């Protein structure tokens, strides 16, 4: 204030202290507006990768079909893990498939999300006592669970909306951009356990 009045007496205009202004801009824009824009953009471009895990894949096909069009939320099933940011684990994850899901998840760039779909993804579903399945939360960290066997395509659409709400309200995408927060893999099985069978030669 004092500087402003002093500059006026000398016939000049006072813009302000650029350092302080830059500091304030960083705080308001990046943590405020730009963060919201990042979250909005991520929420409306959640592209699932083409990984069909099990029989709920039929309802995924129907959910992105013409009747229950999920593309209006901005999500487009895309072919390569490098350009997608969502994995939908439909149904049961068997031991062979667990390795593939983990490798595909690791190839995807951050920020990435996982939706576990169906009763088999919750706790085994109708195959609960089988010797060949694992739970998806032991393979990748999961964000949204959808109950149902198979869940109706409207439930799948609801889960995409829930994920959008989560991203926008908690700022998940912008937190990664600003602070570099990564997923904690502490409670997930190590990759050697999941993929260890690929080189084994066991005598039957």
């Amino acid at each position, binding site marked *: 204030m004092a500087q402003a009045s002093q500059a006026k007496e000398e016939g000049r205009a006072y813009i302000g202290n650029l350092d302080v202004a830059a500091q304030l801009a960083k705080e308001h824009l990046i943590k405020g507006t730009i963060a919201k824009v990042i979250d909005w953009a991520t929420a409306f471009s959640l592209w699932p990768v083409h990984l069909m895990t099990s029989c709920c894949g039929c309802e995924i096909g129907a959910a992105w079909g013409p009747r229950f069009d999920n593309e209006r939320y901005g999500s487009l099933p895309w072919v390569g893990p490098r350009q997608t940011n969502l994995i939908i684990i439909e149904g049961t994850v068997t031991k062979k498939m667990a390795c593939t899901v983990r490798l595909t998840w690791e190839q995807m760039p951050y920020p990435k999300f996982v939706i576990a779909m169906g009763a088999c993804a919750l706790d085994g579903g109708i195959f609960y006592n089988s010797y*060949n399945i694992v739970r998806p939360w032991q393979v990748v960290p999961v964000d949204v669970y959808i109950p149902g066997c198979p869940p109706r395509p409207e439930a799948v659409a609801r889960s995409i909306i829930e994920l959008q709400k989560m991203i926008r309200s908690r700022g998940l995408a912008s937190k990664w951009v600003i602070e570099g927060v990564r997923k904690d893999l502490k409670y997930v099985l190590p990759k050697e356990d999941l993929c260890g069978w690929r080189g084994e030669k066991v005598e*039957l």
Partner: protein
Amino acid sequence: MSSSGVPAPRPQQPPASQAPKPQAPPQPPEVWKAFAEKLKDLNPVYEPAKGYLDFVVRPDQLVEAAKRLKEMGFDHVISVGAVDYPAKKQIKVMYHVTSYLNEELPKYVIALSTYVNRDDPRVPSLTSVWPSAEFQEREEYEMFGIIFEGHSDLRPLLLTPVVAALRPLRKDFVVPEESDDIEVDSEAFNATKWW
């Protein structure tokens, strides 16, 4: 006297000391006998079943019986299945076959079966006679541990090698039942959220 007074006398029960009559062996139907004519010197045994005709032969006669069935017109295998009987210490291997190209035979499903020892099950492979049995023999190999001698490519089909070594479909492989009241490790569950 009203009828509800005295109960009617019970019919005489035969004395319990009589030994039970021996069961007569089940009689095969006419159709079975007509097919068994061609396999006469292999002595097939009849086992009663609904929906298919069962011929039981010895393991070393299996290839010969298969060739004769193929000459009759049965040209592909529907299913290669095995059943584990731990009480009798045997595994029964069944080949269900039927015909595509013949005119009257498609309505019959013939099962060519054999019993093998449970501890060292070895069966000659029928892929030389019926190529359609190839993948199914691989599946029974990994599920039961049956070695099909003469199979060109015997390795596990559906399971990882670690799981196949347990020979899952045998009766002595029991999966421990998961209990309903699993304690949820809520700290672990919440820690998997990265935000």
